[in-house]
């Protein structure tokens, strides 16, 4: 038995929203205040790593097409990798700030995977529109983790980085098959069936 796709998208959206809110909290109060309780430093990297681990079941059970399987595999790997690097930086296992480029790479790979795996045009259907939007959002927002590498104390970079996850969460909440509510944008997508 497989649950409706929208449920899984919404659960991942919740994960990203939590992640974004943690980052936003840190951006608002400042890193020193945020890390007065040491466990808070691990919060968002752990969420990213955990979301990567949970993406693997989606990949292996989602074999309706090769393209989607590979896209979910790419998201699983980059989420795990980027989360792992951030955890290692917090823990002090990795020292160089350049390791933060892992998150930039994760944004670029994830965005590219969204754009490549969505084969329809922007206005084909709601999910196509949102996949394009997600892809370009991630590609453009890759500038924020990049800025965190060169200017680690930049409030703008921290806030932009945090808000990117909030935006991704909102887009994921809207993403799935909502034809029963809104209908398909293109008639080619067929009759809404749920």
């Amino acid at each position, binding site marked *: 038995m497989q649950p409706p796709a929208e449920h899984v998208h919404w659960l991942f959206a919740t994960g990203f929203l939590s992640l974004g809110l943690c980052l936003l909290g840190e951006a608002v109060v400042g890193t020193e205040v945020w890390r007065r309780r040491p466990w808070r430093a691990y919060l968002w990297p752990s969420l990213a790593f955990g979301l990567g681990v949970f993406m693997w*079941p989606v990949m292996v059970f989602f074999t309706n097409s*090769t*393209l989607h399987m590979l896209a979910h595999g790419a998201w699983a790997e980059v989420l795990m990798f980027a989360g792992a690097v951030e*955890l290692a930086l917090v*823990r002090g296992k990795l020292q160089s700030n350049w390791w933060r480029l892992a998150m930039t790479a994760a944004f670029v790979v994830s965005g590219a995977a969204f754009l490549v795996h969505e*084969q*329809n045009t922007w206005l084909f259907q709601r999910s196509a529109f949102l996949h394009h939007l997600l892809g370009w959002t991630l590609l453009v927002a890759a500038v924020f983790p990049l800025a965190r590498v060169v200017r680690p104390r930049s409030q703008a970079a921290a806030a932009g980085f945090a808000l990117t996850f909030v935006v991704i969460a909102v887009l994921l909440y809207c993403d799935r098959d909502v034809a029963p509510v809104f209908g398909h944008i293109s008639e080619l997508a067929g009759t809404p069936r749920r």
Partner: protein
Amino acid sequence: MTRLLPVAVFVALLMPAQAFAHATLEHTSPGFEQRLGSSPRKVTLDFDQYIKALPRSLQLYSSHGSIPVARVRSDGRILEGSLPARLHRGGYTLRWHALSGDGHVVSGVFTFGVRAAAPAPTDAFGASGPTRAEDAVRWLYFLSLALLVGGLGFRLLVARRPLPARFYAVTGIGAFATLNVGIAAFLLRAEDALQLPFGRLLYGDLRPIAQTRFGTAFIAMTLGFALVTAFLFLSWLTGKELLLWPAFLLGLAFVSGLSLSGHSAADAGSSWKSELADWAHLSAACLWIGGLVQLAIVVWPLMPDARRSAFIGFSRLATVCIAVLLLAGVYLSILRLPQLNDLWTTGYGQVLLVKIGLVAVALAWGGLHKLVAVPAVAAGGVLPRLRASLVGESLVGMSVLLAAAVLVNAKPPVQPAPTPPSASSVQK
């Protein structure tokens, strides 16, 4: 209640998603690998979106070749075609292609049987079986498992003390490779079954392949080794060596995916004993070769003070591994090749002979270490070429894995069916 919420979220996240952009096959009649009691009149494919039929949208094959499908038509989300009046008893392959509403051609294959078991989709008509590329990928998979599981086994059973960071680098490479090479192996098998060029394979429906033994093993092993990777990383991050134990035990357990989906599980004569023997054979090989690699490239260059104890400890472990390897290997060889002359008269037997030859070289090399190097090292002697010798033994072990990869992808000779009891003996 607050405790139940995270558990509920965790369970829900474990469940997979379905998300479609182009038309996806939802239901077929006959079903995937369905055994039918009588010949079907038509085939029907039900998609989730609007599709259009193409020339040769439905292609039906028996083991003898193509069978024409008449009146192929699409009606909204339905693609259907009429079959000849009567299909003979046997297995059938149906290849389908349709123009999705988004303008892409979606494709797939499934099999069914008429008064007979359906062949697996990986044995569909036109599939050529494992290629040289699959042999290479299978070999890489064995090597990845050896680096990961063997490395963990060496750390926990032999070294029993913290190892330098290179240990995590080597096992981490093994974990990463296990996940990615596994995906490559699955896609290569799907490519062969679907018989599609890469561009169209991207839109190929992989579900029939995922429902085979091979596909189930792929799913289980990918999930299992994702967890192993997570435990390995957390052990490195936190410095808690205890986390290596679940990684090692899970790794050993999920190695069984290969045994539960290969010859030892699917071929005639297979049983739980053959599956257990296959798992023990593979696990012992991983521990032996992965341990050798750790000894040669982690302990020897980076921990001079630990060389003696590690070398002697590994020698003991290797002796057990070799014994298990030989016992399980001989049992499996007898099971698959009951006639001695199968060894030189069949392709499978010839590859097995090559493997046995390589194993003999590896055994001789290991025996030399056991009989000459271990006493010398135990007595405090210094053997300057020992590291090079360990690397050499590792390379021979890896070449054994290459022969094993070819062997796993080859088909053992068909065994004669057991003679049925005579009517008189049944009456007695």
